């Protein structure tokens, strides 16, 4: 079967700092594959490996800096055969509908496909909307939150967890499936996989035109910090530990 996996390249949230004016600064952050999209790539790679003769291509849409050689290699070292990336500053911070519109263009360039796998949500907005919007753009069925995924007799067999129950679902292809992070632990690529990744085909292109957006971002700021008493003791002072214990007793 022919599998596509969509992933988002984002700044590493561990590197985001707060500037003095309360705005977020991601200028020094490394570009990485959004955390739960790594689980999606792994689920897709396992589906490919379980079905002999399958192909796996990754698709991604993002700003110019998403065209990052280390990150592209990272994607291609995880069982992905080929990458289709649309990287252009007009594609920064798109809403889910605009992202899906652009991803659909890459889907049409990536050849025949049976299933498109997407992650649970991206690190930035965690919208859980790009998969369903992509299904709408391509006019195919969509199932969210798969915790298990296999291909049997021409159909996808899906298990998923809702809030208080699980469901077993059969789905004909072509379809879009979003996967829950627990579906698969991302692999740690070996040196050979990383070297091989450098030789795999990468199709990187600019945007054809700036996509139409539905949502306007009004502001992005750091959250307000709570005011705390900051009564701090030192255990190396003779009575520091006792005083601390008393203070804790008072709180409880």
């Amino acid at each position, binding site marked *: 079967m022919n599998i596509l996996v969509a992933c988002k390249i984002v700044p590493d949230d561990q590197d985001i700092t707060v500037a003095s004016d309360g705005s977020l600064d991601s200028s020094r952050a490394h570009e990485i594959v959004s955390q739960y999209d790594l689980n999606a790539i792994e689920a897709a790679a396992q589906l490919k490996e379980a079905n002999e003769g399958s192909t796996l291509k990754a698709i991604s849409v993002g700003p110019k800096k998403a065209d990052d050689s280390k990150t592209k290699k990272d994607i291609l070292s995880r069982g992905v055969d080929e990458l289709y990336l649309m990287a252009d500053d007009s594609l920064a911070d798109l809403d889910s509908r605009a992202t899906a519109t652009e991803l659909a263009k890459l889907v049409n360039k990536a050849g025949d496909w049976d299933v498109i796998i997407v992650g649970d949500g991206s690190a930035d907005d*965690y919208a859980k909307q790009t998969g369903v919007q992509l299904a709408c753009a391509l006019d195919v069925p969509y199932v969210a939150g798969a915790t298990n995924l296999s291909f049997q007799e021409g159909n996808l067999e899906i298990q998923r967890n809702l809030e208080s129950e699980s469901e077993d679902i059969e789905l004909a292809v072509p379809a879009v499936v979003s996967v829950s992070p627990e579906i698969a632990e991302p692999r740690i690529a070996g040196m050979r996989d990383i070297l091989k990744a450098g030789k795999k085909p990468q199709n990187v292109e600019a945007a054809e035109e700036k996509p139409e957006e539905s949502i306007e971002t009004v502001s992005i700021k750091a959250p307000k910090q709570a005011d705390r008493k900051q009564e701090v003791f030192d255990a190396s002072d003779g009575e520091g530990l006792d005083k601390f214990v008393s203070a804790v007793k008072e709180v409880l």
Partner: protein
Amino acid sequence: MNAFVLAETENGARELCAGARQIADEVTLFTFGNAVTGVADKCLHLQIPEDAIADDAYPSVNESFDASGAKVVLAEPTVRVTSLAGRLAAHANTAAVPGVNALKDGVATSVYFGGTGVKESKPETDVSVYLISAGTFDGTQATGTDTVEEVEFKAPEKLAVKKGTAALPKSDIDLASADKIVACGRGFAKEEDLQLARDFASKIGAEVACSRPLSEGVNWFPREAYVGVSGAVVKPDVYFAVGISGQMQHMVGCNDSGTVIAINSDKNAPIFKQCDVGIVGDLKDVLPALTKAL
């Protein structure tokens, strides 16, 4: 203006209808859970066929939305309603605004990068769709009639087949409703040292949680126990941060706690600027002293 509420739980329906009432003259509730009365001007109820998934009710949802004349959609962020909200947003040529925890004059406040930031955004389209987090509106304020209309399930051309369903076991970690939490961080050098935190937690009736490195770095804890960005966001009365440095990525998960108490051996750890009570000391001395004294 009319508002369209998409919900599957009774609580969700109540809260969202109460919120919708603040911004709209007329509120239509669409649910595939139990019909809820007294919260909207009309409750549209759809029974999902045994062998179908609720996500595939979108032709019925979209048709009901069109008939309602609503311009605003408030949706409950469950797995299935999130799918339906996406289908409805695409149908109305817009994108749903996710993770909304406040809504004023059409501007939604959402978490960004798991709480590292706060994002304000506003749909520019004719129709606005918002996925509203639990607790955003006060469900007791909902008012409405007892009118319930049954809606027919109209299958899409291609649909999923539900083969079976089973109840999920309840997780034994319940951080959301805990009034005391003892959170462990990288200051724990060895896994066996966690027993000190567990002993203390059981003495005071607290849940034990962790920062990201202990759940995703060394796997000493399951994912549900991790507080912070893309983990759990908690607001207990008392939060003990033990061996946690206090990086923003962790603190966004516990900033709303009543009292924050910090134990850390590094006197320069940022946690000491974000706690009410703290001690610079070795957790291996401090935790047993607390367990003994309380």
